[in-house]
């Protein structure tokens, strides 16, 4: 699927290679194919549309970089944007200030709530907690027995009472947890359709009576377009604080993850990846994004694209250096590159002939941000032709970047020192700088 997508995009962009910028028309055409892929992965139609509008916005006007195909360039934007939408970082479970912490597990029938409860119980037990599993599914035949058997197999206490109403059973479970100092309390509720008013009201009652630290919405990764409707309905009623995606050991792409995230803004906290009770993993947005887009190796492809983009910039810089055109713009872009690559001092030391000659150009990581701010406060003319930097300009730049005039003076001095150095520094042959930057 992903290879197919890459090929399709390559076709769309072929004429573009090596010239011009990504235009609205050709990106639009390309994104139509991407939309198909997203729909095949069960991303909701509307969510996909909004998502691609954002991608388009970011992509239009970007310069086409010669050494990376425009298709790869666009895919990188799609990937980055998707990771961001999926939540960037992995989220953690919340804990109540007053124990026991309650985790309430809700969802549609057959999404995998009971199994997830047991998995969560085991997960917390291995972290040294003493969880209590509460069998509050009084609807499905033998649901309580199921939780009981699972709890027994992992050595976690289970609370089960022949109550008539789930909220009463939950309250009794809380007493039990307090008496036996069990914490946290994990509540397995009955599966229900989001349009079932009576059962949804029951969940609300449990929420009000127990004030859970987290309400976790369990969703089947095979869910299609309807994921937005059920997630939204559950969210509107309960404001759940996190989602769980189950059955990811199958081959469903899991576009539902994107849909759920988009309509509720709540993080996906765990994914469930197998029948064994230890098959629970923390959610990783980037892995999910590559899954939705097609294959596992999309990440490496994206990395390759990034590397190519970096190389491209390095090559440009190298050419400028040869022509002695090195200005603050280049300085800025080089700083940013270096920032990505780790400690700056180490980098500079690696430049042949420069070791030990840059004592005055000591730049710590924190100063990088300041330098960036200073350069960003310069006009384009000032960046390209630093000779114009007179006193009044320097004062303005200092004010704009929140620094002092001395800082500006020092930076200009460093820049000039660097230029002088580069004049003396000849060669290494073509690609020298690129190779240098590729070194760790």
């Amino acid at each position: 699927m992903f290879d197919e997508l890459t090929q399709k995009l390559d076709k769309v962009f072929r004429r573009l290679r090596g010239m011009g910028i990504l235009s609205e028309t050709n990106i639009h055409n390309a994104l139509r194919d991407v939309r198909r892929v997203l729909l095949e992965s069960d991303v909701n139609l509307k969510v996909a549309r909004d998502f691609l509008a954002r991608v388009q916005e970011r992509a239009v006007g970007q310069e086409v970089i010669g050494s990376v195909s425009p298709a790869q360039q666009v895919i990188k934007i799609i990937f980055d944007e998707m990771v961001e939408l999926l939540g960037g970082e992995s989220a953690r479970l919340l804990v109540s200030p007053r124990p026991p912490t309650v985790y309430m597990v809700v969802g549609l029938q057959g999404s995998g709530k009971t199994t997830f409860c047991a998995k969560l119980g085991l997960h917390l037990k291995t972290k040294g907690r003493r969880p209590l599993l509460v069998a509050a599914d009084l609807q499905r035949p033998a649901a309580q027995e199921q939780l009981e058997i699972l709890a027994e197999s992992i050595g976690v206490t289970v609370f089960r009472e022949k109550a008539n109403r789930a909220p009463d059973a939950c309250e009794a479970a809380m007493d039990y947890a307090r008496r036996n100092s069990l914490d946290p309390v994990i509540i397995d509720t009955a599966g229900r359709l989001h349009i079932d008013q009576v059962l949804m009201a029951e969940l609300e009652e449990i929420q009000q009576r127990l004030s859970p630290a987290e309400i976790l919405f369990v969703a089947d990764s095979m869910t299609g377009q309807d994921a937005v409707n059920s997630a939204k309905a559950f969210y509107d009623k309960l404001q759940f604080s996190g989602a769980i995606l189950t059955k990811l050991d199958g081959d469903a792409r899991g576009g539902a993850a994107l849909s759920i995230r988009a309509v509720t803004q709540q993080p996906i906290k765990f994914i469930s990846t197998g029948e064994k009770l230890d098959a629970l993993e923390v959610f990783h947005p980037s892995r999910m994004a590559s899954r939705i887009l097609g294959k596992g190796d999309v990440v490496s492809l994206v990395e390759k694209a990034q590397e190519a983009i970096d190389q491209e910039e390095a090559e440009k810089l190298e050419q400028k250096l040869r022509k002695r055109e090195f200005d603050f713009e280049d300085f800025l872009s080089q700083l940013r590159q270096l920032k990505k690559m780790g400690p700056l001092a180490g980098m500079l030391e690696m430049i042949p002939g420069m070791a030990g000659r840059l004592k005055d150009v000591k730049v710590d990581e924190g100063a990088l941000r300041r330098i960036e701010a200073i350069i960003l406060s310069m006009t384009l003319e000032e960046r390209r032709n630093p000779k114009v930097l007179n006193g009044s300009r320097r004062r303005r730049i200092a004010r704009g970047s929140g620094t002092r005039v001395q800082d500006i003076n020092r930076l200009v001095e460093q820049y000039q020192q660097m230029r002088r150095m580069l004049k003396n520094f000849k060669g290494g042959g073509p690609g020298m700088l690129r190779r240098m930057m590729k070194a760790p």
Partner: protein
Amino acid sequence: MGIFSRIKKGFSKTREALSEKMGAVFKPGRKIDDELLAELEEVLLSSDVGWETTDELLSRLKDAAKEDRGKTEPEELMRQVIASLLGEAEAATEPADNNEKPRVILVVGVNGTGKTTTIGKLAHYYRQQNKNVMLVAGDTFRAAAIEQLKIWAERTGCQMVSSMHGADAAAVVYDGFESAINRGMDYLIADTAGRLHTKSNLMKELEKVARVLKKKRETAPHEVLLVLDATTGQNGLVQAKEFTRAIPITGLVLTKIDGTAKGGILLSISRTLNVPVKFVGFGEGLDDLAVFDADTFAAGLLGDKETLESS
């Protein structure tokens, strides 16, 4: 309550959700043009029909419209197109020999689609027809699956054969088959463990179940029903394909259609695999199962109130 009025009940939510959209697409007096097709495409895609089948349906609609020369309302044409696509699958499957007793129905599917609940309803359905039904607890994997089936057996007054948790599923089903033959049952309905179609060892287990049944009688299992959750997206087609590779599916059961999901993926499945939809499930009660009817489904998908109310 008749079968159709029960389907109607099941589809009512779907209808409410969709009829608004469809109503907008098929406003009276509209012609089948690019604009209408684009809107229709949207409705179908957001019902999980999937790209390929949506393209197919739209091109069939265009052809039908050309031939029809504006005599029929676009909405009615679309309904016909959907129903005919579903009907083709039905026509392609030969009805199995009905006289043999017991008829063995094997119920399969991925985890959490509602296999056990469907078996309870199926048992009730046949019990209503005064048939002798036996259940066999072939799900020996999931905790308390046997207990769950047992409760359904008690509710429906069926006999049940089971073994212990962790026992060999094929052996249990085989025992059930023998016992059903000996006791002159009309139907034997076998539960199986939910399994993701990507787990090859579990799919092999299913092959084995079919093999041991065949050892007893070449004609068994007479029916293999794949239970599919109506909320399932495009993976439903992959599931159906993979299950068919392990064990030929004779019919689909679409469950949980009382939610807002439309179950559009079954159009893709019956188109690609020529497997008819046999039943639909819509609730947790014994009666919440109905024989699938292509016209009613198409009407439900399109929000056609007249067909639904007259049936």
